[in-house]
């Protein structure tokens, strides 16, 4: 069980935007059986993405996939599901819909215009885009252009 704050909170926490779980910058991380309560102020969220990817010296190109199932996210006290951070590309694969509310094999994604396909819904309050289980969300990377192309 992950709790954002209790009645015994303090000012430093109230001005922060805490998160329950920070996901890794690698593939194959999975999470299940976790309950989230009291993340409903100042952009607090159940998840934050891509641990330390903001760091200049060591980061990742992003777009890694996190798998989750059997989550309990308290609707009354957890507004935002995901607080996306640099590089804003993490993919959540929700095996049973307990993260997205869109049923088995659904997806939670960062907001990018090209991801707003008919199977997907922009969910600003939740922190991203949700897609149903009729499609897949996959990472594709384009790289190794000649140096004169990328300057």
């Amino acid at each position, binding site marked *: 069980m992950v709790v954002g704050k209790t009645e015994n909170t303090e000012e430093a926490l109230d001005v922060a935007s805490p998160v329950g779980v920070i996901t890794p910058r690698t593939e194959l991380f999975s999470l299940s059986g976790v309950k989230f309560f009291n993340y409903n102020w100042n952009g607090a969220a159940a998840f934050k993405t891509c641990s330390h990817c903001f760091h200049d010296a060591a980061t990742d190109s992003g777009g890694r996939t996190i798998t989750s199932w059997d989550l309990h996210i308290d609707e009354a006290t957890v507004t935002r599901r995901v607080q996306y951070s640099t590089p804003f590309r993490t993919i959540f694969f929700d095996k049973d819909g307990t993260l997205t509310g869109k049923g088995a094999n659904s997806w939670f994604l960062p907001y990018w215009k090209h991801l707003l396909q008919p199977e997907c819904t922009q969910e600003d309050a939740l922190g991203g885009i949700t897609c149903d289980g009729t499609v897949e969300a996959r990472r594709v990377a384009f*790289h190794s252009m000649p140096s004169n192309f990328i300057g």
Partner: protein
Amino acid sequence: MESAGTIKDYLQDEINYAIVPFKVKQLPSNAWAMPFITNHRYRLHWESVLDFADMKVEISERWVPTDHNMHLVFNFTEKREAVNITSNYGGAGGVLVANNTLSTKNEVDWIPGDMQLRNTTIEGEEYKKEF
């Protein structure tokens, strides 16, 4: 996404499309890595309108054979002697994918890299004039 008006009108309104920042960092470095939704077609081009001479496309290790297909459309503006797509990054064991495999093969037989080259020179020139 379709929009009324010219290509220039479309491109000048950034609400119509996603702009993906270039990333210098790792795995892979000097790359654009992005999520895409399968079963759709995406038109990609670079803001500078430069053509790339070589490019590698890294597909997620999470891809499985039962995934839906995804089409990527790239333009080229400068003349090209050939447009080649090769598996395995063009390295050892890489196979050159023949042109028109998207139209000559059954969809169930498609593999990553199957392609169709459309050499629409006039449209390309008109496209350049828009800028």
